[in-house]
């Protein structure tokens, strides 16, 4: 497997938000301000990678051998939730500056479908551990990219005259749709 193709595919072609439609709530919710968007995006990169790594191990050493694949989703949710809690405590104690910048976004990610989605896709595709880590970083970067672009557009639209009924979330959804259409241009460049 060519790692480069894997990364490009995860960022652009199979963008986690715009092509796979995962993680839509933080995509709409935290895209009003580019500063917040960057914080949220980085938190997703960070947690997504750790979660994919841990769940890969859970799958490999616990669920796989015991023939319990049908428990995958519920187990992953449990593991990721506990992981996020742990990471939050760990950062607060050990790396306070990082906690300060990511702190308020971590709880938001606990049950984020993008993070869970990344973990499950890795299993579905049968990635090796290294591929899993690469793919989850790239997917997180894809999420960050989409979020920052949307936030940039929404900041500009704050200055525009928008019909009252479309102000806020409705317009953001339309924008998300248009961006999604634009990302379809990448379709077929890599699978």
């Amino acid at each position: 497997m060519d790692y480069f193709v894997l990364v490009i595919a995860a960022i652009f072609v199979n963008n986690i938000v715009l092509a796979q439609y995962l993680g839509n709530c933080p995509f709409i919710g935290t895209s009003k301000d580019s500063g917040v968007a960057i914080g949220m995006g980085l938190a997703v990169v960070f947690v997504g990678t750790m979660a994919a790594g841990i769940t890969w191990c859970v799958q490999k050493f616990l669920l796989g051998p015991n023939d319990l694949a049908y428990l995958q989703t519920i187990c992953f949710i449990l593991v990721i939730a506990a992981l996020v809690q742990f990471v939050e405590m760990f950062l607060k104690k050990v790396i306070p500056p990082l906690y300060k910048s990511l702190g308020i976004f971590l709880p938001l990610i606990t049950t984020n479908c993008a993070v869970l989605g990344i973990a499950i896709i890795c299993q579905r595709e049968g990635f090796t551990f290294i591929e899993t880590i690469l793919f989850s970083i790239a997917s997180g970067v894809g999420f960050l990219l989409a979020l920052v672009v949307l936030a940039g557009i929404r900041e500009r639209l704050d200055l525009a005259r928008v019909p009252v009924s479309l102000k806020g979330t409705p317009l953001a959804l339309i924008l998300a749709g248009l961006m999604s259409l634009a990302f379809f241009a990448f379709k077929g460049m890599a699978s």
Partner: protein
Amino acid sequence: MITASVLVLLGIGFTAAVILAVASKLLYVYEDPRISQVENVLAGANCGGCGFPGCAAAAQGVIDGKAGATVCVIGGDEVATNVAAIMGLEFSSMEKQIAFVDCTGGTRAEETYEYDGVKDCRAQSLLYNGNKMCPEGCLGYGTCVTACQFGAIEMGPDGYPVVDPELCTACGGCAQVCPRGVITIWGTSARIAHLNLETDCLAPCRQRCPGQINIPRYIEQVSRKDYAGALETIRERIPMPLSIGRVCPHPCEGVCRRMHVDESIGINMIKRFVADWEMNSGQRLPIPCSPSNGRKVAVIGGGPAGISCAYFLRRLGYSPTIFESMPKLGGQLRYGIPEYRLPKAVLDWEIQGILDLGIDVEYEKYFGKDFTLDSLKEDGYEAVFLGIGAWMNMTLRIDGEESIGCETGTEFLTKVGLGVDTGIGKKVVVIGGGNTAIDAARSSVRLGAHVTLMYRRTRDEMPANLEEIIGAEEENVNYLFLAAPSRVVSDDNGKVTHMEYIKMALGEPDDSGRRRPVPIEGSETLIEADTIYTAIGQKPELSCLYDDTGNCQLNETKWRTLDAHPDTLQTALPHVFTGGDMHTGPSLVITALGEGRKAARSIHQYLTDGEPHYSSKLQREMIPYTIFTDVPDVGIRAKAKMPHLIECDERTCSFEEIEGAISETETKEETCRCLRCGLTCYNRDMVEGQECTAEDCVKTP
């Protein structure tokens, strides 16, 4: 299968729980319970006005000691009291802060292009930095109005926002969104400590005034008959409007934009009118001061600079003590400026008002003799302001200078000021062309002498104020131009009988731009004189800075003044600051007052932040694009005439004040002449050349 899945899930859940439990023990971070208590009493608006991202962060900041009880800018005294109670802090009432709109341009400001885009200041400012010709003024789309969460800002009728002081909470939302920096959040302390910036809305007069008084603002307040407000505006920059209203040579009027239409505004007459209004009302207006913080600062020298520094330090909450070598305060104002220009009663009244704010004075204490910088430190003074003025006279360096009857002009004026015998004769020669020379000459006239004023250049080169030169002419002072003293002739008793001088001719201009006088060989002439007063310049007496071993920790400049940073006035010793004539050399009273404020500001910053600081955009020179001579669309209005209280023949035998104040009606008309200039804008009210009367005056602020 069910058993297995239940067991696995329980296992995972249990493991996670154990890990988290252990982690929460190991990774426990102590959080002060007061954080949540403080957060609960804050206003909860998450407005960010305090500088922290939200109320939770502000609460954290209070616990960390980064912010005091007054952290919440919108909560007011009530919230501050609650926070103080939780933290066990002392709390004294908060200084009222408010959003202040600096720009008065609005619709008056010229536009450079037609803008048809989004009606938002930020959007417009992205396009060629906005369409107003003035690079600093309000763009007028009211982005601040929408930003205000409290409905305190409205777009005024003149195209710039107006703040409702009752509703404004000083949260700073408006200041954040304004792309031009037109709105500032500040209270009295911040206004006092503000130095002119190139980005401020500075009319030419404001740029020129060494005291940086907001002239257009107080003129506008006077025109609305808000005399108290006008005095408050003036007193944010100088403590002595009464004295300045009388003695200032008003450099501001020299750059007045109206000058290019008819005549400049009588700015100083207006100032004098409001200052006299307060004195005649018999009641002193309250001067807002910060609550005392008990920190002691020594102010050495009770002249204009020292008084100004002590006054502003007191207003900023410090406890200054003035050390004065003379029996009374005032410095050159008292001992250099004669009674007929500034009556002592007026000066006393004004100084008393300043001292009543809570300033201590130690009279007849000589610096270097009765106390030193070290002894001040031991007595608990955290900073020192040195403002001993420039009292040492330059000598003529000619023969016979030590004869009886030959004295310096300042010594003579001090004697007159103290009311002691001057020993003046009947034929007086005054040497010099500055204000001190004229003061000495006009005072001599009043003591019944026949006075000749000798100056080595011509009338055009005289550094004295034109009004003073004319005043002396009217009082029959003889001028002897192009004459330099060469020898003092005395009789056998050593008493002056004649003065020998050499005639001069003007040669090439020198460094100062004035033509250099060149002596004409063999033109020595004698003039009869029994008293000679020299007033050819003064410099600071810096010997008091040296200790017994001849060492001095401070530096001198090449002009023999005390060296200091030009913007912070901090000397080589970090806790010592200077200002006034001691720093600048002999200069105007208004310059000394301005330097006193500058030094007070630096001392305040030094004592709170550890070092004084200043912006890179400080306005020092006149801003070139604001100085233009083409001022169209302004009607002609006659300037008020300064009334004289006593006539010429009386003047020569009386020290009574000469200049009077203009009447209320005249003041009103004079304020109406003001064009209310900004950097580039001004009131275009009339067709050029049209005359108008006070009834036409429909100016709005």
